């Protein structure tokens, strides 16, 4: 009898344990169904729809839509804007992270908050700020137009807006990483006779490279995909100041569905590539991190 009783007790305990953790088979099925269903309905289906619409009239129509002059110009402009703003943000981001993590100074936390500002401000506002400064009615507008310099409704404005919106990515990725790594290795390099550049390129950079790449990747994805801020300063001049997101919107508004989705499919592809690269980098970061903790032990 006692053995039987024990068996009953342990079975009851097992059931309670499972219920407590939501491990009941029904609960598991419902959660899985909801989670995957949500993913399917809100992410996979729209993504698939983009490609289906883009290829709706076949490969030739797709290629034709992308090689149409205005579409091709938007692709070139997007690449140009990213090619300017991403390297600049890389340099500024590294400098900001370096200053914040390797030196002690007053107003440090204020600077960190300031770096985050572009994340907390609506992109439209960011765009309007540049119009306010450099537009015809803006602070520097009259002087700029007198000297024949065009910023708003031109490429420089788009680059400025993109830099503003994407500034935090690199710095934010690096600051916690560099804070954790401290300054001892840099000090060791200096004592061994290395100058500032040698210290940076041989010691600091190799230690932060995966985090830096990760930040650059996110920065690039946003730089190419930014809509709001760029839309305000662009002026939507076809073939001249339309980036790919803006071009997509225009084409869609003109009921040119295949062309709109063809351009959109490139942006979607960029997102997919970013996603894969991001996973790889996250894995490398983790590996680098665990070797670092092993180092400290």
């Amino acid at each position: 009898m006692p053995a039987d009783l024990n068996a009953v007790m342990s079975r009851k305990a097992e059931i309670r344990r499972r219920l407590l953790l939501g491990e009941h088979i029904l609960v598991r099925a419902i959660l899985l169904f909801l989670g995957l269903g949500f993913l399917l309905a809100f992410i996979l289906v729209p993504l698939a729809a983009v490609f289906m619409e883009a290829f709706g009239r076949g490969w030739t129509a797709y290629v034709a839509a992308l090689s149409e002059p205005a579409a091709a110009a938007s692709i070139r402009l997007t690449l140009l804007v990213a090619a300017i703003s991403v390297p600049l943000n890389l340099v500024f981001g590294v400098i900001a992270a370096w200053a914040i993590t390797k030196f002690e100074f007053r107003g440090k936390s204020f600077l960190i908050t300031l770096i985050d500002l572009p994340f907390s401000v609506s992109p439209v506002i960011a765009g309007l700020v540049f119009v306010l400064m450099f537009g015809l009615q803006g602070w520097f507008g009259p002087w700029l137009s007198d000297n024949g310099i065009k910023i708003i409704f031109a490429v420089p404005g788009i680059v400025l807006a993109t830099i503003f919106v994407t500034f935090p990515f690199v710095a934010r990725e690096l600051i916690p990483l560099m804070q954790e790594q401290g300054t001892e290795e840099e000090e060791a390099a200096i004592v061994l006779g290395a100058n500032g550049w040698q210290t940076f390129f041989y010691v600091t950079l190799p230690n932060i490279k995966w985090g830096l790449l990760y930040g650059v990747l996110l920065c690039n994805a946003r730089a190419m995909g930014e809509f709001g801020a760029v839309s305000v300063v662009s002026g939507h001049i076809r073939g001249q100041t339309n980036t790919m997101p803006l071009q997509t919107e225009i084409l869609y508004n003109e009921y040119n569905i295949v062309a709109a989705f063809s351009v959109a499919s490139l942006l979607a592809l960029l997102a997919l590539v970013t996603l894969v690269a991001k996973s790889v980098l996250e894995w490398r970061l983790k590996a680098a991190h665990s070797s670092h903790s092993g180092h400290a032990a």
Partner: protein
Amino acid sequence: MSIEISHVSRRYGDFAALDDVSLSVAKGELIALLGPSGSGKTTLLRIVAGLDWPDGGDVLLDGKSVLDHGAAERGVGFVFQHYALFRHMSVFDNVAFGLRVRPSATRPSKAEIADRVMKLLKLVQIDWLADRSVTQLSGGQRQRVALARALAIEPEVLMLDEPFGALDAKVRKDLRRWLRRLHDEMGMTTVFVTHDQEEALELADRVVVMGQGHIEQIGSPHEIYANPANPFVFEFLGSVNKLPCNVAKGDVGIEGLVVDSAIRMPEFDGRGTAYVRPHDIELTSAHGGGTVRLIAASGPIVKMDVELDKTGQVIEVDLPLHRYNPATLTAGTSVGLVVRRLKVFPEAEAEAAAKAVAQATGAEVSLPSP
């Protein structure tokens, strides 16, 4: 290379890490900076190496002020507390770093660098690890890499910040002896920081005891241990019994203990605190001094706790093993106590020192109840 530290001060806000510190180190000496955490010893080391700058005072290497020179130009070898190895490099690359970053005019050829690095790795007995990543090494191996890397630039001064702090006891002892031999062979000036008194006393030619940004005493290990200059040094180096006493006409009186009649304190008068090392107390068969409470006989020294009958204070007494007879001495035995050596300090000084040591080491303040 000789080191001259002259009236150096360093403050962090309101906190004085170093307060008017002066010290000279002769060429080829091995010096220990000993003190609790927060005593300023690491700050002093970093200032000499060029990793920090003093608010006042001067640092001279071989008679020349080096405050206008950065760390790179001073040619000081530095071993960091946590080694600070370049974690993305191999053992070989770590050691070669100091040679590779030299301007091309003074940089040795690739073959020479490889030759020197391998010689150094042999010297520190880890040449078989040259291709390993430093993340794969044990603590003791990392320590050796850090040392080889510091020696690669052929420094005339070697500075080590808590070199053995992160190692376990056995490795620590081996490395300590080995470092002493290395120093003697290479003939450089060596300064190391430690909070471990045993390490400092065993390894160094001279020990500099630091507390709260000051130098408390400088001397040979024997001088420091046998003749501490003040209560702080007494407290920090080894165990000590603090007993309230009264000095009259040079004669020291401690309640419950017999003070050797040869001991005279003519320069002191009135109430004070007597500092007595546990091995400077002798047990006699006379009754009425104290009662043995605890005996720990595990090694060359028998350690005892003895409760004084008059005051109830518990003191530590050390007895050489050959004088210990388990048949006559057990817990509960009543014994007489004779003090063979002591030093008396004013009560206020003793109190301040006890507080300072307790603050620095995080221990409780224990003072004799008068």
